[in-house]
């Protein structure tokens, strides 16, 4: 496993996307920070705690990285060489997942770091100690958001991994992944709203789990998700494990 992981990291760090992503995320955050200068103090606080939209950009790039990481092996035919070098093919899958996970952590650290720098250019009345949501300071809010986003991102990454091991081309996985990421919540509410009788089952649908971050910020979401925060947390883990499990099996069984 150590060798497989080393190989995946080696390949990953030699891909341009791995180095361009942090740069782009930082630039995009800078761009957003510029537009917030004229905004009200409370709006500026919101942008600071949400990392100047950096978290959303990160997950977009993570979707692309996840999908290509899996799909490229089949596209380049390199999967045969890899499969010979490991006792079980799912090890490759898990190694790839761990690499993306590690990278996701780095990206989140980066977003927090860049936010710290960008805040300097914001309204001087903003202080990290200012009490904001959850009866916590502004700094704490940023930290909590980063953690929640990291946590929720794992579910999306595992879904994209699953999609990429089913499809011939990474593009399909990217498209569906992005779609799920930005419309999944809406889809879930639509489902729960349309089939009231089935809510006890439907509330466990994976897209409903995306609400974790919102519900943490605003407990009123409970009426929409029909799940407590604890349940959302557990649901996230269970679906992630399920997606990884199914994806790994499909990945291992795929014809070479």
């Amino acid at each position, binding site marked *: 496993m150590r060798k497989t992981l080393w190989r995946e990291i080696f390949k990953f760090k030699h891909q341009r996307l791995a180095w361009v992503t942090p740069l782009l995320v930082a630039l995009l955050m800078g761009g957003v920070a510029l537009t917030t200068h004229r905004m009200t103090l409370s709006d500026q606080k919101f942008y600071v705690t949400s990392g100047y939209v950096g978290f959303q950009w990160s997950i977009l790039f993570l979707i692309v990285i996840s999908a290509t990481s899996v799909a490229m092996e089949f596209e380049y035919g390199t999967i045969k060489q890899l*499969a010979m070098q490991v*006792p079980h093919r799912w090890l490759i899958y898990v190694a790839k997942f761990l690499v993306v996970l590690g990278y996701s952590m780095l990206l989140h650290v980066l977003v927090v770091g860049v936010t710290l720098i960008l805040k300097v250019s914001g309204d001087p009345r903003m202080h990290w100690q200012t009490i904001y949501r959850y009866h916590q300071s502004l700094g704490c809010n940023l930290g909590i958001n980063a953690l929640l986003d990291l946590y929720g991102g794992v579910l999306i990454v595992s879904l994209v991994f699953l999609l990429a091991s089913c499809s011939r081309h990474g593009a399909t996985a990217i498209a569906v992944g992005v779609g799920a990421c930005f419309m999944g919540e809406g889809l879930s509410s639509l489902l729960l709203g349309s089939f009231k009788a089935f809510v006890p089952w439907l509330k466990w649908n994976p897209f409903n789990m995306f609400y974790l971050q919102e519900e943490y910020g605003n407990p009123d979401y409970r009426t929409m998700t029909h799940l407590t925060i604890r349940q959302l947390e557990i649901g996230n883990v269970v679906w992630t494990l399920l997606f990884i499990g199914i994806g790994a099996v499909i990945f291992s069984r795929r014809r070479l």
Partner: protein
Amino acid sequence: MQHVQEKMVQVAGIRKTFGRRVVLRDVSFEFSTGKIVGLVGPNGAGKTTIMKILLGLTPTAAGDVRISGQPVSVNTHQVVTCQVGALIERPAIYPFLSGWQHLQLTTASTVQMDWVVKALQMTAYIHRPANRYSLGMKQKLGIAMALVTRPRLVILDEPMNGLDPQSVKQLRDLLVQLAHEGTTFLISSHILSELAKIIDQVILIDQGRVLLQQTMTQLHQSARAFLVIHTAANQRACQLLQSAGYSVTLREDQLSLPASLALTPLLKIVLDAGIQVLKVSQQREDLETVLLRLLANGRE
């Protein structure tokens, strides 16, 4: 001495299906350590499929595969990981890595890497990114990745694809040298003559069956010999011989007959008719012809 005779690969009764299509039926063969074995057959015969099964990349419906006596399947192929190098179908290449980085992924030893780069004469471009490689350069890199760890068994699927004549010769020499040092090779091709100079054994497959497994000596012996006669009037000589009961064929400007015939009475017929004999010689079928004949027989 006993060690040399060890069976490197043993394949028994393999059956492989894709859906309802049977692609391999009851394929069995074996060969010993240090041999270069050619896996020859037309397009779609099942060469690549056999190799994938040997490497534990593809499940089988039935049969037993062993390398160095250890079983190989999709879920148990430790022996493949430790002792086998392979190039299957097309070289496994990431466009964003250089040739050298590909080798780094395969081995930790720079000594081995230096050796293979020099042996395949790739020094000029090994540090360039692989997306700028030509077809032949990629092919060489694929071969290099199969050889770099100095595995005991090397499986190469049509390795000569895209190589220029000079590289083909270098590769042949390298393979022969490695075989002398104890490496076993299984090499596929649909052209036998490409391999004939280096292989010890040939396994001929067609439509998913093994038609024959022979040493090259045996194959050369099964090449038919012909008696070839040039005369000043081939047409007339042919008619004369035919009416005398010989099975003779007129090809281009020569008469060809089975080689086992007594020469004197045959020539006497021709000479008595006043036809001048220009040349009498014996020829053998070339290997490609033998192979085509065997294939045709196998399909009957």
